[in-house]
């Protein structure tokens, strides 16, 4: 079984300048893009989506700045989609993710063709990747992850092309893609050990030459040059800026992104350093188990055994590629297993991409073995049916979990918050309320009189002080009042938010032994408001 799979670098006489598959796409190549794209299109979120999506969309549309690590390439490429004449801006950025998701499958198919994996195995493996719950879900809303996987697959494909026929331009192209990928998602650094291994284990004359090294470094820097966008945008004082903090007067104080210190603070993700490797050793067991479960779910159970088998087969056939993929996989898995965030399940996509490649190789090994060595090769249709059937089953099973085609909840929630807000109000909230409201304000021009502050961007002490100073002067809305706010203000539920108002006369509430009758009544009312919370 092991000797069936061959990689192209083992073949002789394939020294063309550029791979023909890049220059002569045929129907299969087209379908590897359009089939998943159609799936994503049918289930795409129809408008602005919540959390990071709203932040990314608003930043792209307003030429703004987002939080660490800046994602400048996403901000640049996303702009192309903002100009599309379909749907609203939110929909267009969701479409961007769908294109990138489909592009990932397209490039992964090219990689597998390069590794001489047949169409049934490719269909079975990439079909499961395309319909993996989180890969599918991240292809339906504005997010950076599918652009990340598309660029990661491109880096891998270009490295394989270079390996097939080493040349300076090919290695420089891979370096350029790596730089671009890093400009989108700083987690690209997790790919660097694998890339270095793969290049360094090739004969030195193919890479250890001054001209080649210079070209590679220049190409990588060209890819990274998208980061210049950040100080440039900072200089234009964007209306949407998540790199800074509000002070106690409600003034946004941006980190100076035109200084090296400020720039490095943003792109290195120091704001999230506390979450990185944020687990103690004793807590890691469940996290590792959680990753295993996510992998199992992603490949619909069926892809686990053949995926493992594929990794073994590849290790036997081409140690260099196998070790590169192992380094990709484990670097990503280990980092994100140790990343203490609630939405980490959406961050495993690079590991899933590697697994899909192993899965295809495992499938192919099984098919080849059946075809070549059994006395009944006609039975080979059975595993083929199994592979294709698993994809259809995954589509059916996961569709209802990921389908967002009728999800207007974010827009409706944000509209309700703005409609219920009194004139000149201040609204405090978290990621699930604020960025989407800002989208309505900054992109669609609704309710510019309302000030909206993400609590991520203000310290608790400053927020308290700001609320105290504004209480009674402006209506203040809050998503989840703290004990102090409940004590110091009158709290009324208004839709999803709470309206904070000054305490009534005589309701100067500090728990004292001597309450007047009036303040006691006030306290009783306060208690009923607290129940609302």
């Amino acid at each position: 079984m092991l000797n069936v799979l061959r990689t192209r670098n083992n073949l002789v006489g394939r020294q063309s300048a550029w791979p023909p598959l890049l220059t002569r796409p045929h129907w299969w190549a087209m379908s590897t893009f359009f089939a998943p794209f159609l799936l994503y299109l049918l289930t795409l979120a129809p408008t602005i989506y919540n959390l990071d999506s709203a932040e990314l969309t608003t930043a792209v549309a307003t030429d703004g700045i987002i939080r660490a690590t800046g994602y400048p390439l996403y901000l640049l490429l996303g702009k192309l989609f903002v100009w599309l004449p379909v749907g609203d801006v939110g929909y267009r950025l969701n479409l961007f993710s769908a294109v990138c998701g489909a592009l990932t499958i397209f490039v992964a198919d090219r990689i597998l063709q390069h590794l001489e994996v047949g169409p049934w195995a490719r269909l079975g493996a990439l079909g499961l990747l395309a319909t993996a719950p989180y890969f599918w879900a991240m292809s339906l809303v504005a997010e950076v992850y599918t652009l990340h996987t598309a660029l990661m697959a491109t880096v891998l494909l270009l490295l394989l092309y270079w390996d097939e026929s080493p040349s300076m331009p090919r290695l420089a192209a891979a370096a350029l893609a790596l730089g671009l990928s890093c400009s989108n998602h700083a987690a690209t650094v997790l790919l660097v050990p694998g890339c270095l291994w793969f290049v360094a284990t090739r004969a030195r004359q193919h890479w250890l030459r001054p001209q080649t090294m210079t070209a590679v470094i220049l190409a990588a820097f060209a890819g990274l040059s998208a980061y210049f966008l950040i100080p440039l945008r900072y200089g234009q004082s964007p209306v949407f800026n998540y790199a800074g903090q509000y002070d106690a007067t409600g003034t946004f104080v941006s980190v100076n992104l035109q200084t090296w210190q400020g720039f490095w603070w943003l792109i290195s993700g120091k704001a999230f350093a506390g979450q990185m490797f944020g687990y103690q050793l004793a807590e890691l067991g469940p996290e590792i188990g959680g990753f295993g479960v996510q992998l199992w779910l992603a490949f619909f159970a069926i892809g686990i055994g053949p995926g493992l088998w594929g990794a073994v087969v590849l290790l036997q056939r081409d140690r260099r590629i196998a070790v590169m993929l192992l380094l990709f996989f484990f670097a990503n898995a280990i980092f994100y297993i140790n990343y203490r965030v609630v939405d980490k399940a959406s961050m495993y996509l690079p590991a899933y991409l590697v697994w899909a490649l192993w899965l295809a190789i495992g499938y192919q090994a099984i098919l080849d073995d059946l075809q070549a060595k059994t006395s009944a090769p006609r039975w080979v249709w059975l595993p083929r049916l199994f592979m294709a059937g698993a994809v259809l089953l995954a589509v059916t099973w996961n569709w209802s979990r990921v389908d967002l085609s009728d999800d207007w909840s974010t827009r409706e929630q944000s509209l309700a918050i703005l409609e219920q807000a009194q004139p000149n109000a201040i609204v405090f909230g978290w990621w699930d309320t604020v960025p989407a409201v800002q989208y309505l304000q900054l992109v669609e021009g609704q309710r510019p009189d309302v000030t909206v502050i993400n609590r991520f961007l203000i310290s608790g002490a400053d927020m308290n002080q700001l609320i105290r100073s504004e209480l009674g002067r402006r209506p203040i809305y809050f998503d989840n009042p703290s004990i102090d706010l409940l004590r110091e203000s009158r709290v009324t539920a208004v839709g999803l938010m709470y309206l904070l108002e000054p305490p009534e006369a005589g309701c100067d509430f500090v728990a004292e032994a001597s309450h007047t009758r009036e303040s006691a009544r006030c306290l009783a009312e306060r208690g009923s408001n607290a129940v609302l919370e």
Partner: protein
Amino acid sequence: MNGLKQQNGMRLVLMLAILLSGIAMTPFIDIPAEAINWELLAGVYEPSLDVNEDSGAPGSVFAFTGSDYPALSNATVYVNGDQVGNVMTDASGMAAFKLNTTGAAVGQYNVTLEVDINASATESIELKVGEQVVTPPPGFTGPAFSMQNRIYQPVVIAD
């Protein structure tokens, strides 16, 4: 001939084992059915505070456990809005403390654990005459705070 058949049989078994090994894990995995939407991914800081018993006699020592707080942060404990102490959350965002009610009057008390202002959770306990004296479960660790000097003053409105 028999040898060839046996070999083919073995190959088919091996192939099936590889293909179906993941499915064999199905009974051990809790398969989620919930939709993957923003609500699922929105748990920024939604801490919770639990107590070992809801009620007890005055003099009870209740054991509180907070979870899903920001990690390694200073958390403040309030009883009915009054600060009674501070505790650090651990690396997993959990914090535990005991609340000694010796000297406190009967009535309901709202106990709040809050990190800064952005992560807060409240749990109620009630002190009743005739209830059992509550003690923390064996092995429970955490700083102990007293309500002795912060006696709850029930609000009575005389009409």
